[in-house]
């Protein structure tokens, strides 16, 4: 068929009535002419008409032939078929509801799941040629993925042969004085190469220059959102100054609208429009920072591969530079390698497991829904066997039969598609609310038609395929068989029966595996919650203070903290108040190496721990217990002997055989005595164990950015105004940021795990429901097929319990096969989840027992309906029916 013909036929579909009338008129014209001619030859009118009609042949069949030629022969009757399918579906609401329910659930779940997977994993990052962007780390034995040092960056920049761009960034928030109110802004220090590497140029003004990379540079680039919302999109902003960190900074540029900063897990903002200000990252080497340029690792490196260069090739190139650095500066770079990761993988970071769980679970649910609908449509074909046999006996060919079956599929698909889409669109806001707030690329998770149509098509295809397989089996036979079979009340052919049984058993298997996975996660969560936290989240207020570098030397910072704690104690209800460098469960990950007097490190051992500072009351305020020795005391001031407090993990790691108390540790060129041991707090609640950590007295090492914790007897948030007043009574310009009670911080740390758990639970519940529906459908169908047989059995003296045993054993047999296969597959699923498990093994015996029991329970539930159907009729009804 040429395209032209196709087009002409397609148009004909829309003008059918008109074209039919034309053909009709044309044919009548010829008949009329024929009649006239006959009458001219002297025939009577009746005789002439009769002869004309004989010559023209059957009027009906000719116009049928024209109709077929005119349009697509097969499509013509589709509307009729659809109408008929709808009528017959309405007469079987049970089938309609189960099929629509299963498919709609599958469509809805998958639309949501693929929205997450696409938004987070698949959607290209919004940069030019994002595939060429990579993150670079320094790799060594103790630190497999370390931020690069500034000196390394400079060497790489100078000598690489494989990169088209290389830049550093590190989050360094700034304080803005805005209408007399200090405010903390998300700011990132970047190198001049940052925007060019991403392929972005400012919307207004200019980029940083290499000459701006100085400690003394006071220039900033603003984000479009900050510029337009806070500065009213001032067109003359360039050259104006903002008061940031108590100094005047000149605005030299505005980033383009909707520019997204690169996300990451260390000293990075979240991926998205999350940054307000970019400032220069000082690269110059001064007397003070000379060692730090090579030895400090806190800057994130991002690079663009040169065209046509693979990650492996670039890695080799950078390793060459690292090897050279290792020869020249063995103290800093010995045995170190470069490590490159695609930017897209880094942005997702630790949430990858969660996303993969969602994806796998969602795909399994879609698979289940498809199997379910497939099973139902096989059953449906079987119940229609007699009707289909009659059609075939009357001369319908394969295509007509298939069409009759497919039109039911089409109707089910249309209804469930509409419901599924509605549900998915309605649940999308709920899903976004359920996702942890620090989930990467949360803003990219939106409803997409493509996902919905994919899910719907998959479900429909499965259903259509299964229906057609069943039809093929039926049409292979002589139609008379179908007609007779029904009279003999025989059941479906063994092959078809086995196909259906297999489908239901497969559903059981999937449901069993999902149930097992959900159980593992649930048990891990319980185990995690039972562990001691190492602190008490309830009743504590927390906030952050960041001292500007200007006007706050170490001495003044220490004095400020002592004074402000004294003023906090004047607030009624405050029990204890203290400052530290980090709060529990916030993923603090800043490490420092040190030497322990009398301790010989093993070869390749990295003697390091999380370094922190705390003041006397901090541990009291967060509710951490002292295990041995003493806490930091007010007498541990700058003039006193230097001391540290360590955690239990520290003593386990370095003082396994001997006591840790009173040992001397050399940190940052000072000998410090261990005076106390506090209980462990893990970096994140789901971590297997806590990392070694030590705290120096804040008075001896006053940090510039500190976290406060204030414990009170009442609601911590009621303290906020008084706390603010206390701080601003000392320094009006010091902003108080990230004010919240400790509870939500703890809850946020658990959010991702809870989310994975909830997703798994809902998938398992859906899977169980679908499997239950599957059992119900197959048994209900079988009962219907064997109705007369069962009734006769009852009439001949079989008891109701005999019949029930028959029904239940059929269902339980399927459950047994499915459950057994599920148990075999379950440990593999457990291993895939291993990183989220705590306190249970991937092949947890308890869950291996529970999952099949749940499957059996669901099967029993599914059997109840059909069982009742089987014994509902008394023996009399069978005799009446005969």
């Amino acid at each position: 068929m040429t395209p032209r013909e196709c087009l002409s036929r397609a148009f004909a579909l829309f003008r059918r009535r008109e074209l039919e009338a034309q053909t009709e008129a044309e044919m009548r014209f010829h008949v009329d002419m024929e009649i006239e001619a006959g009458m001219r030859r002297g025939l009577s009118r009746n005789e002439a008409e009769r002869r004309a009609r004989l010559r023209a042949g059957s009027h009906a069949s000719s116009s049928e032939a024209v109709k077929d030629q005119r349009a697509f022969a097969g499509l013509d009757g589709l509307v009729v078929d659809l109408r008929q399918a709808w009528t017959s579906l309405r007469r079987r609401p049970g089938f309609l509801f189960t099929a629509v329910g299963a498919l709609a659930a599958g469509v809805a779940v998958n639309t949501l799941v693929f929205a997450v997977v696409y938004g987070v994993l698949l959607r290209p990052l919004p940069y030019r040629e994002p595939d060429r962007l990579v993150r670079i780390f320094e790799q060594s034995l103790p630190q497999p993925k370390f931020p690069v040092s500034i000196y390394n960056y400079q060497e790489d920049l100078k000598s690489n042969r494989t990169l088209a761009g290389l830049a550093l960034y590190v989050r360094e928030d700034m304080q803005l004085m805005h209408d007399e109110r200090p405010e903390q802004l998300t700011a990132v220090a970047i190198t001049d190469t940052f925007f060019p590497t991403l392929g972005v140029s400012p919307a207004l003004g200019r980029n940083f220059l290499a000459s701006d990379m100085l400690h003394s540079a006071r220039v900033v680039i603003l984000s479009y959102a900050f510029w337009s919302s806070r500065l009213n999109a001032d067109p003359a902003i360039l050259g104006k100054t903002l008061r940031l960190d108590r100094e005047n900074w000149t605005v030299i540029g505005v980033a383009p609208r909707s520019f997204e900063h690169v996300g990451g897990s260390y000293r990075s903002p979240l991926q998205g429009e999350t940054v307000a200000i970019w400032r220069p990252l000082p690269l110059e080497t001064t007397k003070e920072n000379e060692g730090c340029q090579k030895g400090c690792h806190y800057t994130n490196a991002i690079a663009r591969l040169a065209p046509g260069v693979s990650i492996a090739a670039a890695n080799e190139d950078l390793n060459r530079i690292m090897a050279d650095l290792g020869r020249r500066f063995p103290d800093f770079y010995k045995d170190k390698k470069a490590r490159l990761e695609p930017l897209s993988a880094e942005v997702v970071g630790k949430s990858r497991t969660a996303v993969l769980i969602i994806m796998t679970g969602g795909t399994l649910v879609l698979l289940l829904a498809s199997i379910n609908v497939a099973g139902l449509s096989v059953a449906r074909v079987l119940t229609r066997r007699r009707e289909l046999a009659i059609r075939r006996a009357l001369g319908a060919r394969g295509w007509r039969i298939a069409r009759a079956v497919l039109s039911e599929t089409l109707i089910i698909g249309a209804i469930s598609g509409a419901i599924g889409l509605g549900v998915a669109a309605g649940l999308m806001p709920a899903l976004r609310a359920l996702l942890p707030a620090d989930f990467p690329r949360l803003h990219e998770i939106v409803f997409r038609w493509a996902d919905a149509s994919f899910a719907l098509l998959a479900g429909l295809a499965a259903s259509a395929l299964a229906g057609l397989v069943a039809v093929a089996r039926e049409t292979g036979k002589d139609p008379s068989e179908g007609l007779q079979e029904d009279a003999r009340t025989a059941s479906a052919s063994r092959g078809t029966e086995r196909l259906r049984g297999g489908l239901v058993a497969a559903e059981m298997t999937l449901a069993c595996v999902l149930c097992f996975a959900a159980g593992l996660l649930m048990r891990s969560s319980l185990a995690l919650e039972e562990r001691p936290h190492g602190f008490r989240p309830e009743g504590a207020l927390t906030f952050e203070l960041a001292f500007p570098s200007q006007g706050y030397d170490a001495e003044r910072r220490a004095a400020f903290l002592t004074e402000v704690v004294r003023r906090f104690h004047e607030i009624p209800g405050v029990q204890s108040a203290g400052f530290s460098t980090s709060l529990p469960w916030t993923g603090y990950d800043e490490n420092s190496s040190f030497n322990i007097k009398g301790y010989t490190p093993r070869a390749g051992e990295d003697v390091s721990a999380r370094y922190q500072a705390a003041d006397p009351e901090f541990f009291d305020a967060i509710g951490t217990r002292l295990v041995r020795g003493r806490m930091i005391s007010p007498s541990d001031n700058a003039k006193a002997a230097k001391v540290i407090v360590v955690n239990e993990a520290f003593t386990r790691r370095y003082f396994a055989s001997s006591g840790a108390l009173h040992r001397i540790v050399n940190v940052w060129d000072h000998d410090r005595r261990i005076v106390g041991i506090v209980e462990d707090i893990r970096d994140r609640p789901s971590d297997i164990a806590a990392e070694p950590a030590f705290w120096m007295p804040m008075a001896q090492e006053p940090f510039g950015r500190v976290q406060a914790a204030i414990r009170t007897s009442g609601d911590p948030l009621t303290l906020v105004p008084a706390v603010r007043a206390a701080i601003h009574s000392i320094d009006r310009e010091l902003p108080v940021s990230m004010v919240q009670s400790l509870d939500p911080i703890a809850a946020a740390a658990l959010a991702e795990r809870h989310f994975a758990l909830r997703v798994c639970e809902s998938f398992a519940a859906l899977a169980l429901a679908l499997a239950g529906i599957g059992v119900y459908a197959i048994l209900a169908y079988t009962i219907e097929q064997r109705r007369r047989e069962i009734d006769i059995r009852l009439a001949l003296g079989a008891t109701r319990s005999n019949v029930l045993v028959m029904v239940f054993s059929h269902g339980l047999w399927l459950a047994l096969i499915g459950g057994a296969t599920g148990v075999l597959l379950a440990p593999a699923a457990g291993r895939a989840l291993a990183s989220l498990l705590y306190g249970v093994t991937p092949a947890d015996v308890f869950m291996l027992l529970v999952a099949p029991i749940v499957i059996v329970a669901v099967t029993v539930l599914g059997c109840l309906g059909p069982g009742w159907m089987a014994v509902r009729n008394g023996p009399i009804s069978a005799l009446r029916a005969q």
Partner: protein
Amino acid sequence: MGTLYPALVRLEQRGLIRARWDTTDNSRRARFYDLTAAGRKQLAKEKAGCLLMAEIMSRMLGQEV
């Protein structure tokens, strides 16, 4: 008519003929079919094909007899 009309429709779909309503000499409404340019080309092609076939057939049959 069961053969003729589907054939006409097919030719029309292929763009080889054009149909229109008009009045006959004795002023009755009838449907007139014309060849289109493509139709004339196709006709010439088919004609040539037929002639060629006839020639081949006559030669083959001629030799055999």
